[in-house]
């Protein structure tokens, strides 16, 4: 069946096929395709800019309160995040495959690749949804909803990274950025300005004395949920668009002379992938 379909597709004149999809105000299919592509790239630029506000908020708060980010990031599971990444990257690959199939007029290949891409999208949402669920259960939420039942014990934290943290969280909190520098520096604390001696003289430097978490950890979870939430909305929109492509692929709309929608939605999916590429290390891999 599918063999026949692709055979029919190659038999129908490419010019005729392109002409059928040519809007009245364009002179040539090439002009139409180029316009669509430029429009898509501009749109994806605005997508990056939409996220840029959140990246900017992230940068500002991480610069001002690094201790919050170091502390709170430990609640996130890098393994789960890595799985999300793997699934999404694989779906990016199948999307590229789908575009190639559309260009070559291979209907079956296109359908399979689109199905796999959609599956990847759902897989990502499933893994990430489970993470959200766990965080909800542990009250690892934004604003006033942040009151985790399981406080990451500071000892545990320090055991996990004994070299990274020199003082208590609360101390780092008070010292802000400078405290962060002290904690992560190989230079003797005294060499780093007024905060240095304070840390060095403090008995709290000893691991056992670390007592409390930093203030305002909820800020991290606010940013985390906004960034990943907005990204997940984009994944959902992507799945809807891919389903639309699937319907059209089954209807046998695409071929060597007309594959623009597959190409453009593929670009969108690539951008969704790429944004996750930034989110994963920024949120999960802070040490």
């Amino acid at each position: 069946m599918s063999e026949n379909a692709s055979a029919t597709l190659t038999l129908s004149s490419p010019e005729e096929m392109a002409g059928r999809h040519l809007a009245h105000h364009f002179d040539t299919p090439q002009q139409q395709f180029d316009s669509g592509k430029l429009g898509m790239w501009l749109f994806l630029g605005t997508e990056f800019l939409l996220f840029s506000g959140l990246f900017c908020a992230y940068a500002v708060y991480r610069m001002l309160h690094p201790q919050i980010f170091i502390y709170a990031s430990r609640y996130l599971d890098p393994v789960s995040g890595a799985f999300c990444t793997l699934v999404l990257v694989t779906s990016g690959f199948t999307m590229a495959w789908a575009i190639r199939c559309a260009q070559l007029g291979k209907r079956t290949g296109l359908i399979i690749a689109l199905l796999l891409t959609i599956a990847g999208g759902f897989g990502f949402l499933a893994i990430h949804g489970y993470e959200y669920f766990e965080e909800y259960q542990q009250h690892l939420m934004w604003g006033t909803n942040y009151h985790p039942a399981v406080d990451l014990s500071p000892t545990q934290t320090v055991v996990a990274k004994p070299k990274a943290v020199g003082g208590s969280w609360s101390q780092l909190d008070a010292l802000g950025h400078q405290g962060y520098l002290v904690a992560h520096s190989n230079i003797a604390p005294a060499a780093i300005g007024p905060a240095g001696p304070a840390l060095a003289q403090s008995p709290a430097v000893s691991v056992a004395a670390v007592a409390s978490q930093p203030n305002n950890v909820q800020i991290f979870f606010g940013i985390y949920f906004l960034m990943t939430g907005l990204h997940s909305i984009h994944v959902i929109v992507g799945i809807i668009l891919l389903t639309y492509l699937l319907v059209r692929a089954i209807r046998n709309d695409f071929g060597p002379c007309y594959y623009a929608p597959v190409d453009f939605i593929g670009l969108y999916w690539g951008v969704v992938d790429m944004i996750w590429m930034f989110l994963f290390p920024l949120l999960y891999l802070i040490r």
Partner: protein
Amino acid sequence: MTTAEISEHIGEHAPIGGNYLNQGKGIKSWLFTLDHKRIGLMYLISGLTMFFIGGMLAMVIRTQLLVPNGLIFHGSYEAYKHYNQVFTLHGIIMVFMVLVPIPPGALGNFVLPLMLGAKDVAFPRLNLLSYYLYITGAIMAVVSTLLGAVDTGWTFYTPFSIQTETYVVWMVLGIFLLGFSSILTGLNFIVTIHKLRAPGMKWFRMPMFVWASYATSIIQVAATPVLGVTLLLLVAERVMGVGIFNSALGGDPVLFQDFFWFYSHPAVYIMILPAMGIVGEIITVFSRKPIFGYKFIVMSSLAIALIGFVVWGHHLFVNGQSAEWDAIFSFMTFFVAVPSAVKVFNWLATMYKGAISLSTPMLYALSFIVLFTIGGFTGVILGALATNVVLHDTYFVVAHFHYVMMGGTIIAFIGGLHYWWPKMFGKMYNETLGRITCVMLFIGINLTFFPQFIVGAEGMPRRYATYLPQYQLYMIASTVGAYIQLAAFLLMAGYLIHSLVRGKKAPANPWGASTLDWSMASPPTTGNFQEMPVVTQGPYHYDDMEYDGRLGGFVHVDPVPALAGAGVEH
């Protein structure tokens, strides 16, 4: 075929098959139209409606301020809150529903493809979608107003916008949609300009207005998404209590101001750049001289668009920004004056020794130059750090941006409306009434806003429902000016509507413009061009046409040899 040849051709022979207004009948042919001209017209009608509502709110404000204790709202907390709601709605409607979307949406949509020699914009469906997003956004704003009108000021500064009990979320989501509409319009225009220029329409053969629209579109596409995410964060703040902008939850309210002005300052240039484009077109046509310093004007548009992105901090001089950043933003703000001045000087040089005709559109263009210059210079005063500390949040600021927005954008837009009115509707308006109205508006605007510079410099704060008695004389003058403006706008509505019914039929080229938008019959057909134009020279050339009294418009007389082709024998 050249512009003038076509105009001559069509001027003498009525076009066959009607025009875009009557090709396709019934309400559905309008609601689902993909024709850029019809969409432009729908934007125009919606925008003028919003302008009327916003204007009426302004009249309420001015009437309130006739007496020091307030004529309409006085005596109670609730009353003063209503005053806050009125000026907030005035600001939101005028900024987000009139000044930002309407010059590109109405005039840009109508004129841009005509000027480029294209049959339509690149994405007609997207164009219609952006119109409906505009309408949906406007409806959400109305709904929020009915539920509980926002009282935050159009800037939605946190933390008040998080705490107020009015319907901020509805309003903000409405503006998010308006922003989305604006992005799609900008994107559509950029692609149209890149990909749909007529054969021979090189970049430096494009008219001023196209360049201005291009610069505007760049800002729309590059700045509006940041507004989008800011508004989403504000919604998240109110609905979920995320705390990014809420100091009670560890957030930073000043970050909101940075985000907000990162869009809203470039947005000021979204408003003024199309206006500058319109003024450029009008001045060259009514001076009968090619524009002076074409490339400089083009580059100044792009320069304004780019520099506009790095001046937002001048809104935060007294809000805890560091002195170093204050200095940088102040310097960049001064820098914007350079391309703006380049434009003004080039317009003046264009008029120099030109055969100036003081028609209605030209009077508006001249008013624009005067009013925009006053608005621009006072902007430099506000951009200076020392004076800003004194003048911040006074009526001086109000006067400054009303000179730029009202005296600049609206005046140029109205001028453009008069300029393209014959092309849009195929009718001529009453020229005498047009000139009288323009003079009334010019007097009205100066009388309204100039006294506000004085009271502002004397320290009268903005956004207050009451004021000290010593300012009353100025406030009365200001209110009288506002009523003169109202009268002028009503008169304008009268003669424009009258022209639709009784107006003289417009010729193809009533003003003798040489750009492609005047090369077809008035009004154009749905497909714009009977025969696709081929461009062989720059946009402005007036030696090859003269006025023909029989048509009431200009015709092509002495073709430049290179342009000779079909139609010359006419």
